[in-house]
């Protein structure tokens, strides 16, 4: 970092890196950048893709990418109550989870089909756990089968995971689960 820039409150990091960090928090990504010299000044144009409300289908199985294409799913009981939330390669994992011990009488529902960033998936997983009663490790009477949180509050990436869940994404997800 340039000392004068730090004093002035500016970063001298490459503009693309700054944009990537900012966009990652809201689930966006840089899709291209170009430098142009205009009147002796270098102007960098950055093209970004916003993914505030994810859609589409990410790769599954061998094509799964846990950094940019995670899924999110819930398992419900027959009455429709959410009992478990999971993330990862949702199409691959949902049946594995549904048929494991304690979960073979539950109903799986994919909320996002591998189209979330890792930060969005972890952030949403924790938000849903919080919204619907907390994990068993902290609340003995919790109806959840999740035993531990998605991430610890002391995790260095915790702010990134929290910030990745915008109000719009949270509302969109709650609508998907029927709340």
């Amino acid at each position, binding site marked *: 970092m340039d000392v004068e820039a730090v004093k002035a409150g500016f970063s001298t990091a490459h503009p693309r890196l700054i944009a990537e960090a900012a966009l990652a928090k809201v689930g966006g990504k840089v899709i291209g950048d170009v430098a142009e010299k205009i009147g002796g000044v270098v102007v960098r144009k950055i093209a970004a893709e916003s993914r505030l409300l994810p*859609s589409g289908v990410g790769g599954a199985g061998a094509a799964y990418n846990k950094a940019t294409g995670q899924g999110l799913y819930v398992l419900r009981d027959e009455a429709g109550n959410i009992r478990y939330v999971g993330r990862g390669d949702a199409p691959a994992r*949902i049946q594995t989870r549904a048929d494991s011990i304690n979960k073979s009488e539950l109903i799986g529902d994919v909320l996002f089909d591998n189209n979330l960033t890792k930060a969005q998936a972890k952030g949403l997983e924790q938000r849903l756990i919080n919204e619907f009663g907390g994990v068993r490790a902290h609340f003995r009477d919790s109806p959840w089968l999740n035993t531990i949180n998605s991430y610890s509050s002391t995790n260095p990436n915790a702010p990134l995971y929290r910030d990745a869940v915008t109000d719009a994404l949270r509302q969109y997800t709650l609508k998907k689960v029927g709340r």
Partner: protein
Amino acid sequence: MNSNVEGSLVTIPTEGGWGVAKIIFQSEQYANTICLKLYKKRFLEGASIGANDFSGPFDLYYTSLDGFKKKRWTIVANELVSGDEKALTRRTSGGEVWVEDTHLGTATEADLAALPKMLTHGFKLIEKYVGRYPVAVAG
């Protein structure tokens, strides 16, 4: 167990009897997942179930292959899956529209209202549902 079970006619145990179903779709996208055309009837223990019994009103359920892996469900015959049956797999999952393993695009509000949602039921639930169907006479 043969890993390709699409088109199979299967019997599913329930307390004191059996249910009957046809597997109309086996997904590669959704690993370990099949679509069951589960006929809304059950047969009592000892009934002689024939090919004609795989007919009539049905419910559609997505479930796993675990009923077979745990040697509870039995394949008794096989028949072609018709075009009409394949069309029954048009559904939404995660806000996306699918038919079989073909992704048709992001669901509109109209799609979400009109199409069934792909919910995957644990195999024990399927056996429980069979137990709720009315008893039928085989043949």
